[in-house]
C-alpha cells in the first residue's frame, strides 16, 4: 500500500507544480496588473500545497513550518499589492 500512497502523493505534487506554472503564465500574459496579482497569489498557494505534499512523503517536520511561512508571506504580499493598486500607496499616513 505504500506504493499507492507514494504514487498518489507524487501525482498530487505534479498537479500542484503544473498549477503553479499555469499561474506564472497568467502572471506574464495578464493584460492588467490585477490579473498578475491574482495569479501570483494563486502561485503562492500552489507552492504551499507542493511543500505540504512533499512533507507528507518525507518524515521531516520542517515542511509544515515552510508551508505556514509561505502562506503568511503570500497573504501579506497579495494584500500589499492589492492595496497599492487600489490607493497608490501601501500604508497611508
Amino acid at each position, binding site marked *: 500500500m505504500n506504493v499507492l500512497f507514494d504514487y498518489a502523493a507524487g501525482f498530487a505534487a505534479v498537479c*500542484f507544480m503544473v498549477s503553479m506554472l499555469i499561474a506564472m503564465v497568467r502572471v506574464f500574459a495578464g493584460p492588467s496588473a490585477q490579473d498578475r496579482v491574482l495569479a501570483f*497569489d494563486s502561485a503562492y498557494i500552489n507552492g504551499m500545497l507542493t511543500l505540504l505534499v512533499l512533507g507528507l512523503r518525507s518524515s521531516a517536520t520542517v515542511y509544515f513550518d515552510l508551508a505556514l511561512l509561505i502562506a503568511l508571506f503570500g497573504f501579506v504580499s497579495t494584500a500589499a499589492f*492589492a492595496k497599492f493598486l487600489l490607493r497608490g500607496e501601501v500604508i497611508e499616513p
Partner: protein
Amino acid sequence: MTETVLPAWVAIPAAILLVAGGLLTLIGSIGVLRMRDFYTRMHPPTMGATLGVGCVLIASMFVSSVVLHRLVIHEVVIAVLMILSAPVTAMLLMQAGMSRDKRRPRSEPPPDQS
C-alpha cells in the same frame, strides 16, 4: 514516510484525498488561464485555495496521526490562516479592479478578452 508501512485503511483514503485535491487545484488553475474577464478569473483559484488545501491538510493530519501514534492536528493552523486571509485578499483585489476600471480613460479599450 517511505520507511514505515502504511496499512490499507490509511493509504487508500489518503491517496483518494491527495488525488482529488491535486485534480481540483489543476482544474482551478486552468480556469484562471481560460477565463476572459478579470472578475470571472477570480473565481477558479478559490477551488484550489479551499478544496485543494482542505484535502491535502486532512490527508496530512490523518497519515501523521496514524504513523506517529498520537493526534497530530497542527496543520489546522494553515486552514485557519487561509479562512482568515482569502476573503480579505479577494475583497481588496476586487476593489482594486473596480477602481482601476473607473480610472481608465475612456479612449482606452478594456484590458480583457485575452
